[in-house]
Every structure is written in C-alpha cells, then in structure tokens.
C-alpha cells in the first residue's frame, strides 16, 4: 500500500509540475537551446520508429536545421513556455493550438520546399509554422481569419526578424491571387473541402498540405498534388505507423 501511495504521489506531482524546461525567462536562451536539441532528438526518434511506414529515413536536414533555429517558446503564450519544446501540441488561446513538433516537422518536410519557392499558409495561428517556412524560402505568405491572433503572430515574427513573411487577415478560401501561383500551400485550418480557388493557385507540380483532425491532433495528412498535366491527386497519410489489419484476407 505504501509503495502504491508513494507511486501515486510521484505520478500526481510529476504531472502537476511543469515538465521539460523549468519555467524560465527569455534570457535563459541557453536552456531553451538545450530544450530544442532535446526536441529534435525526440522528433528523430519518432521518425526512426515510423520511417519504414512513412517511406523516409530522415527529414530533410534543412527542415531539422530550421526547427533547431526557430525559438518555438516565443510563439506560445508565456505561461506555456516551459512546455514549448515538449513533443506535444499546446493551446495558444482563441481556441487554436500550435501543433506537436513531430507533426510540424513532418508537414514541413512533406511540402518539399526549395529556396526561392513561393509558399502560402492558410491559418497563421501562432506564426511558428510561418517562421519555419521562412527559414526554408524567402517567399512566405500567410493568412489568418482571427484578427487578434494574426496581430500577435505578426508582432512575434517582426521581433524575431522574419520581416519578409507577408501576413494578412482575410478569407483564406480565395488564397492570395496577387501572389499566385504557389509552389506549395499549407492549409493549417481544418476544412471539409479543398477550396477550388486554392487548387487553381497551385503551380503544376505544386503541393498542398492539409492536416485533418481536431485542433490538437492530426488524424491524417492530405497531400494534394497538381500534376504537370493539370490533373489532381491526393495522398492520404497517417502520421503514425499503424496498419488496420495484419495477415492475409
């Protein structure tokens, strides 16, 4: 009984205490850097276990470098900073979330961005994904439908020097026609259909990525590809190594 009680206490308090990095102010940059390295290790570990399933041994080194550089803790609310580098999604207010780092890495990798590619993000959210994209290409356009969220993200992006990320509050359904076509589009807000104007703004050979699921967890990642002949295909990817059936049937 005693052992059980002790275990229970340990479990309870372990959960109650902030995990990962202890709450630290911005000047504890070194601690955050260490936490980022830990996060990258966690992502690599996850990928190793899923690599055969996802048909990729590792993420593009540029994606991982970007994740090592972007200070994720500055994109989450101050009270959540201590958890910023845990491999889990976090609420950022306004009913929105910042995705789990592993999913962010996977989505960014699936976009297959090259320097100079033009990329459109629908759903700026915290601005973290936009900052990552800006590490990979200098032509990033991001739209948000919740005004205060867009303003907050803009401030953080400016503070970190991502001035070239263009942001706008507006209807993502019609994309950003003045800057179209795009090499890649990432739709971070769930949708029940792919807006036809967005499909039209995708370059031949371009890719659109849509995570489908709840605000906290992506059930599947949908990669829409516009082929050179103009035809459209999707690839539906479970972000986790799971097959519904084993054996022959």
């Amino acid at each position, binding site marked *: 009984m005693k052992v059980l009680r002790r275990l229970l206490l340990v479990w309870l308090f372990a959960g109650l205490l902030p995990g990962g990095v202890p709450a630290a102010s911005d000047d504890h940059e070194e601690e955050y850097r260490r936490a980022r390295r830990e996060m990258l290790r966690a992502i690599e570990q996850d990928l190793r276990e899923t690599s055969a399933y996802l048909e990729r041994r590792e993420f593009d080194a540029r994606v991982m470098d970007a994740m090592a550089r972007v200070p994720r803790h500055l994109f989450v609310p101050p009270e959540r900073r201590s958890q910023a580098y845990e491999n889990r999604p976090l609420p950022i207010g306004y009913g929105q979330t910042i995705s789990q780092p592993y999913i962010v890495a996977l989505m960014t990798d699936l976009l297959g961005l090259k320097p100079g590619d033009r990329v459109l993000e629908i759903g700026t959210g915290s601005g973290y994904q936009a900052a990552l994209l800006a590490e990979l290409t200098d032509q990033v356009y991001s739209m948000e439908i919740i005004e205060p969220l867009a303003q907050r993200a803009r401030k953080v992006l400016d503070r970190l020097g991502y001035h070239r990320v263009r942001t706008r509050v507006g209807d993502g359904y019609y994309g950003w026609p003045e800057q179209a076509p795009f090499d890649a589009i990432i739709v971070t807000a769930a949708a029940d259909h792919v807006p036809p104007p967005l499909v039209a703004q995708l370059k031949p050979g371009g890719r659109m990525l849509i995570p489908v699921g709840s605000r906290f967890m992506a059930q599947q990642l949908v990669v829409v590809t516009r082929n050179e002949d103009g035809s459209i295909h999707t690839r539906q990817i479970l972000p986790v190594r799971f097959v*519904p059936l084993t054996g022959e049937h």
Partner: protein
Amino acid sequence: MNTEKRAGRPPGPPLAAITLLSAAALAYEVLLMRLFSIIQWHHFAYMIISLALLGYGASGTFLALLQRRLLAHYPAALLTNLLLFAGSALPAFLLAQDIPFNPEQMLWEARELLHLAAIYLLLSLPFFFAANAIALTLARYRRHIGRVYAVDLLGAGAGSIGVVLLAGLLAPLPALGAIVTAALLSVALAARKLRLPRRGQLFIVLLLLAATQLWVARTAVLHPSPYKDISQALRVSGARLLDTRAGPLALLQVVANDRIPLRYAPGLSLNARQGPPPQLGLFADGNSLGAITRDEGHAGEPGFLDQLTSALPYHLATPEHTLIIGAGGGLEVLQARRLGSGRIDAVELDPGIVELVSERFAAFSGDLYHQPGVHARIAEGRGFVETREARYDLIQLTLQGTGGSGGLFALSENYLYTVEALESFLAHLDTDGWLAFTRWTRLPPRGTLKLFATAIEALRRRGVDDPGQRLLLIRGWQTSTLLIAARPVDDDLITAMKSFCRQRSFDLVWYPGMPRSEANRYNVLRAPYFHDGARALLGPGAEAFLTDYKFDLRPATDDRPYFNNFFKWSTLPEILELRERGGLPLLEAGYPVLIAALLQALAASALLILLPLLLLRSRPAEGAATAGLQARVVSYFAGIGLAFLFMEMAFIQKFMLFLHHPLYTTAVVLASFLVFAGAGSRTAQRLAATTGRRRATLLAVGGILLTTLAGLLWLDSLFAWLAHWPVAARVALSVALIAPLAWCMGMPFPLALGALGQGGVRLIPLAWGVNGCASVVSAVLATLLAIHFGFTVVIVLALLLYLGSAAVFPSPPSPATGAPHARRVDAC
C-alpha cells in the same frame, strides 16, 4: 421544535415538498446533461453527470455518521438541505462551466484531472443535499415509508415529463432558473407542512432568493469550450450570431459572416471549379450541423452539389420520389431538386431546424421546404418509413442528420444504422430503387466498412444470396457514398458510376466484379484499404477479417445499436504505445470515457460504502447489525439498485422502436416506470401486512419475472403488428405495457427498508448509500453491457439480480426504527 406540541397532533410527512424536490432533482439532472452537452461534448457530459450523481451515495455515508443528530432536529435539517439544494443548483453549474476542462489535454496534463474532479465535486453537491432531504424524511416517517417513497418516485416521474416541456419553452439557463424556483417552492411547502414558526419571514426570503436566481439564470451566459465548432465560427473576423433557439432536442444557432463566409461542401471534388454559394452556418448544441445554402441556381444547374460523392445516385437514375432522412439545413434536399428528383420527402427530427429554414431564413434558402414537390416532415427517419406504406426510388441518409461519425458518438444509440433499419429501408424501395448513405471517411477505415458489413447482413437477411451484386461504394478524400440497389447492378450502371467518379477524381471502392487494380487511384492510401476491406467482407474469410481487424466492424443491430463504437480492447496497447507519436486520434474516445466513468464510479462507490461499514464496526451495534446482516443489506440494495436501472435503460431502448422519437420515448418510458413504481411502493406495505415482507418481495420479484419474460417473448411482434397505430395510441399502449412491470419493481425497496425499520435502523443509511451508488454504476454498466452483449442480456441480468436479491432479503431479528430508498434516472 415545539411546533408539534403547539398544534396538538404532529404533522405528517411533507409529501408535497418531497414530490416537488424529487421532480426538481430529476429535472436538474436531465438539464445538466443538456447544458454540458452544449458547453462540452456529449460523452463527457455523460461521464460528468453520472459521477455527480454519486452525491446520492455520499448522502448515505453522511447520514450513517449524523442520522441520529439530524433526526433530532428534523425540520431544521430538512429545510437546510432543501434550501441548500435550491441554493446550490445554479451556482454549481455556473462555477463548473468556468472550470477550463479540456478533455483533449487530459492525457498530457494532470491538471485536467484536477479540473474534472472539481467539476464532479461541484455538481455532486446539489444531489447530495436533495438525497439528504429525502433520506431524512424516510427515516423520520418510518411508518409512512411506502407513501414517502411513492411521492418521491411520482415526483421524479413528473420531473422527467416536466423537463421535456420546460426545455421546449425556455432556453437551458432560464429553464434551470425555473427548476431552482420549484426547489425553493418545496422549501415553502415543507415549512408550511411542518408548521414552522416565522414562516412569513421565510417566505419573503424565499421570494427574494427566487427572484435573484431567476435574474442570474436569465442574465448568465453559457460558455462553450473554445474548441467547439460554434466557438470557432464566432471567433472568425466578421462572424455574427443571427439566431439562437432552444428546443428540447438541441440548442440551435445560426451564424453568418459576410467578411469571411462559412462554406460547407463536404468532400467537394478536387476538380470542382466552384465552391458553394453564400451559406449560413447551422449549429446544434455547438456542433456544426452543416449549413443553410442560398438557393441561387436553377434546375439543371447543379453547381457544387453535383461535385459531391452524394450526387452519385442521381447519375444512375433520375428518382421520381426521393426520401431524405436527416434533411437539416437542406443541402441534400437542394441537391435532389437540382439533380432532377420529382417529389421529395424531407424528414427532419428537430422542428426548430425546419422552422429556421422555412420561416426565419425562408428568403435566404429560397423557401426550400415549400418548393413544389418538397414536403418537409418532422419525424424520426426510421419511424417515418416504418409507419408508412410509401415506396421510394431513392432513400438518402445524409451526412449531418444521421447521428455523428464515431468517436464522440460511440455511446449514442443509433437506430438508423442497424441491420434491421437497413432491412426496413430496403423494404420501402421501389423495384429499381436505391438506398444511399454518405459518411465522412476516416482513416484507418471504420464507419464506411462497418456500414458495408451492415448492408451485406441486411441483404442476406432479405434473402439475397450474393449481396455484392447490389452494392456500389465510392470515396473522395473526405466522404464516401454507399449505394444499395433493390435489384442486381447491371453493366450500364457500372459504366455510369465509373464515368461519375472519373470526372470528379473520386475512387471506386466496390462494384460487382471490380478488379483491385481499379482501386486507390486518385486519393491514394498506402494500400487500397477500403477495397480490400469490402472484398474481405463479401468473401468467405469475412469472419476472420472481422476478428483480425483492429476496429470493431461488426454490424450494429437493434439489440446492440452502437454503430459508432469501433473500439477493440486488443488494439488499445498498440495505440497507447503510439500516443506520443501522433497515434492518439486512433483511439475511439467514447468507449474509454465510458470505462473511465465506470472505474471512477466503482472506486468512489467502494469508498462511500466502505466508510459507513467501518463506522458501524467501530461503534457497538445498537440493533442487530451483525456482519451477516450488513452483507445482506449491501447485496440486496446493490442488486435492486443495479436491476432497476438495467430494466429502465433496456426498456427505453425497446420502446424506442415503437415510439421512435428519442426524447419523447425516454420521457414516456421513464415517467411510466417511476410513477407506477411509486404506485407499487404505495401498495407494498399493504401487501406486506397480509403476507409478510419477505413473501411480498418474492411475489414482487415473481411478478417482475413474469411480466419481463412476457415482454421479451411478445413485445417485438406486438410492436411490428401495431406500428401503424397513431402516436397517441402507441404512447397509451406503452404506458399500459410498462405499468405492471414497474408496479412490481416499486416494491422490493420499501419492503426491505420497512424490514430494516424494525431492528436495523442503523443500517438504513448504508442501504440508502449502497442503492444510490449502485444506481450510478448501473447506468454506466448497462451501456457497456449493451455495447458488448445487447439489451436483451441486460434485461436477463436484471432478472437474475432481482432473483438474487430476493434470496438475500435482509430481515433483522428484532424491531427498532427506520428510513430511506433510492431510484435513479440517468437513463435519459
């Protein structure tokens, strides 16, 4: 209190106050369920309210400790508890709704568990006070146990009907205000009956309290979770809430946004050139229910409506007579009109939705439900079909109006997706007709394949040897559409289907003779899971496939109507292992929540039952509280507590297939059980006087056995035979059928309590607590058992529990004092 002396004769039990209190407590319980479904999600609402009801169990523990002292000051104790119930009901909810509980974060943050515990604690308080008031009254008026118990049940019965009426008249929070006012009235009634001094002052205080609470209830606002659809929609720049209307089925809300319009075109083809025209978002209890679409087009210009998987049947034949089940905002009705259907019966359960489309937003929707050939019918879809002779060319079950897409709805019974339902729909198709289902597709495949398996079973039961010849299945990246044909599908139809899919980049999943190479072409999965699944389900290895598949795809039946439950225990370890690596969405939330609720209820119950037992042991027994008698008390009251709810819940489901409407069926069946059980309780004492309590209990259990077995044997045939009776006649017959069973079920509790009143008074709070806990466990356990074994098994188990209880009837050896009872109602 010297009031009794003053009046000469001591006042009798405050029956009117107890009746009103019981009605208010039951109405509160049902309304809390509604309120939490609005601000949270249905299955968490279920868990929260179930656990909060342990307030009844806690009352037993509390009284074991303080019964004597409280009985010495009964009027003050009663009034305090009545006042505390009335005073805490509204604040408890308002405080609980502000606790930022987010179920999705529970697996990461222990803090969420604390939030949940705080909600339980807050909401259990009103039930605790209500239970104390009833239990103390039963203890104080031991010679009137039958009468007190009877009015308690009668009140609960009235509450179950009253809350439905109330929810139809008032928004949820004002309805809560009305319930609180009723509870305050019970205080006044008790004060009057007990002839308390200074009643005038008390009445003024009560009036002031009522006015304050009504004002608070009127001005308070609901705070839905920020992650609910309605919160998300209203946060978008430019969003406006155009309409809110409360009904007994759901809180309906309509949202417009001119700046960033809402758009609803589920699974629109990637080849579509245009999206939907302007739409208004429609929400039920904060969950998206699709949209009301502006009618801008003309017949022959189907626009985006032709680019959905649900358009397939219109490309195989032009239906003359179409039935849309779950018409909602009217998307599929508009689709049927634009794609050439002649007559359209649009069936929608919620009259509020039909009002919105055909009155408040008639101009916007092009007065869709009054267009030539369109007939909006307010009815439950299956009941509508089964009570009519009409035959249709197309019966279309819509995406939004037919009961959810799994996970969140795993615990909801659904009678549209059972094998028997599909048989019924097929029987109402014309010779060339089609039955069509459109669903959200989820990965890995679940609902789509389960529906396919259900269709196969339904066709086989209708004597079709080769069901594969009558099935067509297609999918986009978001939706799938299954068609079941009244006759074998020919090559022309297959060609038309292929052409439809090719033009829209939809994938073929199944048609008779389809080669695997044609599957998985446009929306590419790692393997053609859907086609392989469909093929396996039609082949000789279907049984092995169902066994090995990682989700439960076995067809739902009327006896196990849980289509949306896909959970398998064997898959749980794998999913938990993948939790950190994005595997959590694979977990079907509803079922684990049910298990969590059961475990919590069992743990809390064990604590609440063990505490009074320890207490009894620590003090020398005054009566004859031997260990043997304690064990009998625990077994007996746990047994009848479990059995009563098992019966109630199972018979609600049985009668659902006769009365059809989910809400009214629950209200009618519940009220009938409670009222007639009350009547049974009233006659139990008289029966005991002539035959003795133990014998009377045996007779009651015999009656339960006979009436239940008769019901199991003949109810289904009777329902089928009388399905065409008018609603009022069916309701009257249902009440008459329930009456004898409920009458018998009302007896075992007061009979045993009466026996304890004569030599085991100290065990009465224990009996009360055990029965309260058992009732809570029972509601959760009944759902769990029904998911696995069906409601018939639940009924059989209830019978065994009654028999077992009769065998351990607690007879104390010598006389003494007496008290409480219990019944629970979370079936609704």
